[in-house]
């Protein structure tokens, strides 16, 4: 069976809901490349999701171009993880089992096994669904880069909602 045409479906749905059309950015150039400088078993790994993950006690996300992010300690118990995202229809399973959208336990297991060298002290989330490419380029991406750099990661495991 074919894969779902999400871009077309989401455009049509938003149009019916009276939302402005969400515009994805098409990249047509060759992507940049950071060579992995050492074996994965020696790499410090960070994670980020755009699923709107937060820890109980943190402020939740709002749904109109929220460009903020949250630090999620990589040893957070899964029962303390929550989700707050514009597309609530994709969240029911993650709200029962946070690993569906924020695979924190699998990464902990890979670190325990030595497949990866270790985990960053903090993982990150944001909400995505930011309508402005300029705001992603100028606000979200630099902030997330600085956050990963401060954690000293070699690798970023990126999980879109």
């Amino acid at each position: 069976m074919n894969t779902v045409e999400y871009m077309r479906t989401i455009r049509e749905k938003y149009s019916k809901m009276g939302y402005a059309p969400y515009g994805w950015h098409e990249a047509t150039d060759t992507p940049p490349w950071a060579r992995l400088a050492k074996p994965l078993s020696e790499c410090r790994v960070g994670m980020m999701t755009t699923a709107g993950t937060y820890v109980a006690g943190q402020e939740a996300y709002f749904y109109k171009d929220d460009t903020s992010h949250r630090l999620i300690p990589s040893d957070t118990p899964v029962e303390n993880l929550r989700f707050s995202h514009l597309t609530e229809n994709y969240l029911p399973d993650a709200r029962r089992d946070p690993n569906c959208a924020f695979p924190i336990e699998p990464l902990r297991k890979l670190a325990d096994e030595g497949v990866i060298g270790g985990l960053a002290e903090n993982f990150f989330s944001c909400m995505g669904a930011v309508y402005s490419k300029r705001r992603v380029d100028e606000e979200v991406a630099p902030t997330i880069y600085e956050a990963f750099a401060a954690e000293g990661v070699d690798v970023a495991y990126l999980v879109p909602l």
Partner: protein
Amino acid sequence: MCLIARYLEERGIATIVVGTALDIVKFGAPPRAVFFDFPLGHGGGPLFAPEQQLAIAREAMSVLENLSEPGQIVNLNQTWPEGDAWKSAATDESADDVRSPRDTTPRYQLEEDQRLAEAATGG
């Protein structure tokens, strides 16, 4: 997410985008990506399926370690446990949409989360 992946790789951090929306990932052309044909919201894997969730993370990490040129999207050999029925729901535009309004009010998963957050900030 693809924009962020590119930004990180330009600055020396290797990335892997773990995608379940193939058209969106292709459009954004991240440096490294894996794909499996699961419903959105399941980039970590199916509900209460720790072994499959671990297998996905393990395979994605292996792809990250072994790719040698930018722009590839590697299809992981993962099967959604309940067949393809979810696809008709994912494209059903007549379905009710009960999501909260798109405004600047924080939307807590649980009411108690709001109380905890407000207590933490003295709000």
